[in-house]
């Protein structure tokens, strides 16, 4: 029986280093190739030796698909392709292809230049890796080979994020990557058609959360920032360079404009200005409103938000600073945090999910005394706020996507086991589909029963559908054909055509039954009685009285014969071919019972 196998190498009952292997109809596809922010050792990358112990990855994998540019989805890509070795195609959308190498380079710099690690991928490797990338359009059907095709759908999570449909014949899998079912200030909502995949692999970051309305959260956020600035405090917002940062910038920019605020807003340098430029050039990937108005006013040209310089952190007075990275695990955001943490007037707002092991995760779970490098203890006196702005679907959104796509099975990744368990039950109850949640390295196998495509001769199909079109055809109509199997091709043709093609003659089998009827009347009167009787019984059939005195019921011939010596008994010859067997048999038994006693 055909089967689909799924093995997460990362993101199985976990958030981070997304990497999922899918085998479908003999094709092997790797979905995402991420790093884990919570680890600095071997565990930060997926264990690619699982795929093959001694063969080349290129021989085993048909293609690799990257859903979006976040490092936990693409961070291991240069390591995978250049250091482990993979030369096959890597698919991603245009914005992802544009932005991905920049984030990878940034990641490399932090790891190698700042932390001094060796044996890490190089800038050249990033470039070589990106050469293997094939950019795809939304909804474009990409033919990976003759059988395997993939198609991208809008996912809304960040600029260029996509969900991917992987299809071989009539079997298909949809991988959501990270997605967002509600449009935000700069992106639209994820959308997929009713493609009824055999399996939907969905992220489940917010499996148990049903978030309040976006508007409330935005108001809350603005209120907190405003209050803090009013009392002279400094606000740190750790963000990743692309994504939430732009949404929050738009939010603050419009608020500052409306309230006529003067406190400076800074955005940590370099990356971000470039980042905003990407948003301008890929404006077709943003939401409807921004796309419509961009000629008059480009939302990504900010008036109030200026570039940040390291020296500004020590400036007196209030300010708001967006700094990278978003989980306070390294870089500028961590530096500023250390400077400002001691003052209770200040505030740090975490706008997104933080992976275990990061400073962000520690302070969010209430830790106020942090051990930093060199055994220093940092006391956190500043206010710590968490605000879920990360653009993942919540439980409601996940259910909504399942309703849209109508999968036959669901598999959850990119979430915490406990929360997944809860969502799994909910999905199984509501949609009556199986839901799986394999851990890393664990394989889920599901069996599919795809229909078998064959070629049908148009003549046969038209003949049969014409019968089907008869009004009041509630009863199922049977169709008859002959399936010719030759050199792996299947063709369904009419029996006549099959005989002809094979050069065989038809053998006609005919039956003629003598039916004795007790009737003293003259022969033609008797025939007329038979005719009327049959016409009365067989209302749905064509019953004809032919000029030569015989009767035709459909193609069955009934003739009277003068053979009998007995005047009171007449003999009817009923003659039919094997194809009319049912009707012929029925007619003889009907006539055997004699004619009704009513006088004609």
């Amino acid at each position, binding site marked *: 029986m055909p089967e689909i196998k799924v093995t997460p190498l990362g993101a199985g009952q976990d958030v981070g280093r997304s990497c999922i292997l899918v085998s479908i109809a003999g094709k092997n596809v790797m979905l995402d190739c991420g790093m884990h922010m919570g680890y600095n050792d071997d565990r930060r990358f997926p264990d690619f030796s699982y795929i093959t112990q001694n063969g080349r990855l290129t021989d085993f994998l048909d293609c690799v698909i990257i859903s979006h540019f976040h490092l936990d989805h693409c961070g291991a890509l240069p390591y995978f392709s250049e250091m482990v070795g993979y030369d096959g195609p890597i698919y991603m959308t*245009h914005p992802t*292809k544009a932005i991905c*190498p920049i984030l990878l380079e940034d990641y490399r710099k932090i790891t190698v230049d700042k932390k001094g690690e060796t044996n890490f991928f190089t800038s050249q490797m990033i470039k070589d890796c990106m050469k293997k990338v094939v*950019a795809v*359009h*939304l*909804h*474009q*059907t990409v033919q990976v080979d003759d059988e395997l095709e993939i198609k991208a759908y809008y996912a809304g999570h960040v600029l260029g994020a996509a969900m991917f449909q992987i299809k071989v014949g*009539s079997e298909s899998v949809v991988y959501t990557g990270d997605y967002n079912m509600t449009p935000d200030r700069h992106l639209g909502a994820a959308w997929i058609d009713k493609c009824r995949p055999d399996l939907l692999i969905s992220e489940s970051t917010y499996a148990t959360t049903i978030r309040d309305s976006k508007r409330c959260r935005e108001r809350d956020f603005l209120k907190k920032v405003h209050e803090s600035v009013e009392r002279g405090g400094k606000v740190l917002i750790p963000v990743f360079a692309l994504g939430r940062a732009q949404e929050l910038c738009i939010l603050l920019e419009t608020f500052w404009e409306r309230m006529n605020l003067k406190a400076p807003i800074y955005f940590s340098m370099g990356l971000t200005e470039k980042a905003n*430029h990407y948003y301008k*050039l890929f404006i*077709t990937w943003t939401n409807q409103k921004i796309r419509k108005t*961009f000629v008059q006013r480009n939302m990504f040209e900010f008036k109030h938000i200026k570039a940040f310089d390291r020296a500004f952190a020590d400036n007196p007075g209030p300010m708001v600073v967006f700094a990278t990275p978003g989980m306070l695990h390294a870089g500028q955001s961590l530096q500023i945090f250390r400077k400002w943490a001691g003052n209770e007037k200040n505030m740090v707002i975490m706008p997104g999910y933080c992976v275990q092991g990061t400073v962000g995760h520690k302070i969010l779970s209430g830790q106020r005394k942090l051990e930093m490098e060199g055994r220093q203890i940092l006391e956190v006196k500043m206010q710590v706020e968490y605000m879920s702005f990360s653009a993942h679907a919540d439980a409601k959104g996940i259910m909504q996507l399942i309703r849209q796509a109508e999968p036959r099975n669901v598999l959850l990744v990119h979430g915490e086991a406990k929360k997944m368990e809860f969502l799994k039950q909910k999905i199984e109850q509501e949609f009556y589909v199986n839901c799986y949640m394999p851990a890393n390295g664990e394989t889920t196998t599901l069996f599919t*029963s*795809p*229909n*078998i*495509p*064959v*070629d*049908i*001769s*148009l*003549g046969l*199909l038209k003949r*049969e559908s014409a019968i*089907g079109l008869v009004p009041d055809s509630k*009863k199922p109509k*049977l*169709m*008859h054909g*002959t*399936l*010719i*199997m*030759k050199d792996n091709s299947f*063709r*369904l043709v009419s*029996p006549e055509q099959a005989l002809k093609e*094979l050069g065989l*003659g*038809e*053998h*006609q*089998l*005919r*039956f*003629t*039954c*003598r039916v*004795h009827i007790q009737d003293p009347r003259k022969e033609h009167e008797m025939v007329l009685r038979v005719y009327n009787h049959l016409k009365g019984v067989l209302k*749905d059939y064509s019953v004809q009285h032919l000029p030569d005195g015989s009767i035709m019921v459909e193609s069955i011939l009934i003739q009277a014969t003068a053979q009998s010596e007995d005047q009171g008994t007449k003999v009817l010859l009923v003659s039919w071919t*094997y*194809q009319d*067997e049912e009707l012929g*048999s*029925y007619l003889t038994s009907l*006539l*055997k019972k004699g004619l009704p006693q009513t006088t004609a």
Partner: protein
Amino acid sequence: MLDCGLDMTSTLNFLPLPLVQSPRLSKLPGWVLKDGNTFLDKELKECSGHVFVDSAPEFCLPETELLDLSTVDVILISNYHCMMALPYITEYTGFTGTVYATEPTVQIGRLLMEELVNFIERVPKAQSASLWKNKEVQRLLPAPLKDAVEVSMWRRCYTMPEVNAALSKIQLVGYSQKIELFGAVQVTPLSSGYALGSSNWIIQSHYEKVSYVSGSSLLTTHPQAMDQASLKNSDVLILTGLTQIPTANPDGMVGEFCSNLAMTVRNGGNVLVPCYPSGVIYDLLECLYQYIDSAGLSNVPFYFISPVANSSLEFSQIFAEWLCHNKQTKVYLPEPPFPHAELIQTNKLKHYPSIHGDFSNDFKQPCVVFTGHPSLRFGDVVHFMELWGKSSLNTVIFTEPDFSYLDALAPYQPLAMKCVYCPIDTRLNFIQVSKLLKEVQPLHVVCPEQYTQPPPTQSHRTDLMIDCQPPAMSYRRAEVLTLPFKRRYEKIEIMPELADSLVPLEIKPGISLATVSAVLHTKDNKHVLQPPPKPAQPPASKKRKRVSDDAPECKPLKPLLSGSIPMDQFVQTLEKHGFSDVKVEDTAKGHIVLLQEAETLIQIEEDSTHIICDNDETLRVKLRDLVLKFLQKF
């Protein structure tokens, strides 16, 4: 329906619409018939030997009488020039279907329509000429008015609400996106290399493939390269939208354009470039960007005047995914794909919605002005023609190939300004066509009649026509062409349960057969065969009789039979089954088997068997089954 273009050459018969009152145009004499009759002098004006209609310009629509457009399900658009008639079709013909086009096609198409509406609406014409359209009157007019076709069908321009309504019926699609139409066919747009978002279309079922190739280019300009590989294996290839100027080489024309422009400006003259607000203008600006410094033109201002100039320049920068490889790479840096961003930044290129307003303050001569409309009948270009036409220092350079430049200039004669004709048409020429056809090898080619013979003015140039084998099938306006298809097969799916129940029989080595009796389930033109329903078991034996009283409900046909019956074995089998008095007689064609006691006769020939017996169903069925043992079922 493939494309929905508007024939705008009809506007050449009309007088230009000046933005600023033009004493010259308003003083033109009315046209008088030979016999001195002046009843047309309000409608028709004479200008340097030509007669023009003095009215708001009108356009020639696609054929709408030939068929009921409400029966059209889908319109496929190949590029933004080929959708200009859309509002007439979607709003006034009962059309209720869907229009498919790519995003750049729709956005830029909207800009073209917006510009057109704006040009015409801002110069309202009080009168609408209609007397001249009367067939009797038209006969009396001088050429070309006399020969204009379908004048009764000419329509005035649509309005913005109509444009918006029409565009709202468009469904956006991307290259290589497979779109299912009613389950019956699949359509797919492919990059055609001609303009931003321009597409060729594949229309295919499982077994038949039609390619619609319209407005394609193999030259590398700004759009994504043409996708040729996907056109292979077409049964029919419909070919249209070839270059209008097959003898001109676009590269050479660009060179001439630049040198003429430079020469005029150096001599202190102005250059006027009548153009559409999108398309070739991007390439011209890019060329000038590279050319101006070396040609010493850095201080000459370039003006781009169109109500949609700003939008067009902005839009061009955001369609990275639809651009050629080089430009795509720039976006990854990230840099704007077109250098006109830099021209604007450095103030070398300025754009204005119209000559009114800021432009009049900034206007410096000598300068280069890009503006519409290329027909020279409406838009800001009319003003510049009137303004600069009297000086031989100035030059007008025609780059758009859609209008004959001589006809365009007719109402401005006599003219002192220089006229240069540098038509830049990047669409396929005949050499490229024959290369393309060799490459993709369609079974049949279908094209407009004009392409199957040399141009009328150059009848000796047999290289200027389509040459392919078998010869292309050609069509004319309002002609119905039957495409050479023989549809024989379609796809059907067999449910796995049914497939499991089939019993294949090897008839010949490598060929197996199985008879299939199944329920045909058809939904959205997709066919699935399901296992036949299990016969309902009559609940009690009592009722069974009554069931058999009813006429059989459906007519399950029995399979066909094939093979022949070996006499000896058949007789043995009969005897084994209790027929002791079997007697065989030979006949001319075969044998007759007699079962005397049962009063039964079986005629057996090579290809037929006839069982003649009394009405004894048990006996008959027994004999039937014995005969069937020797035959194969189909």
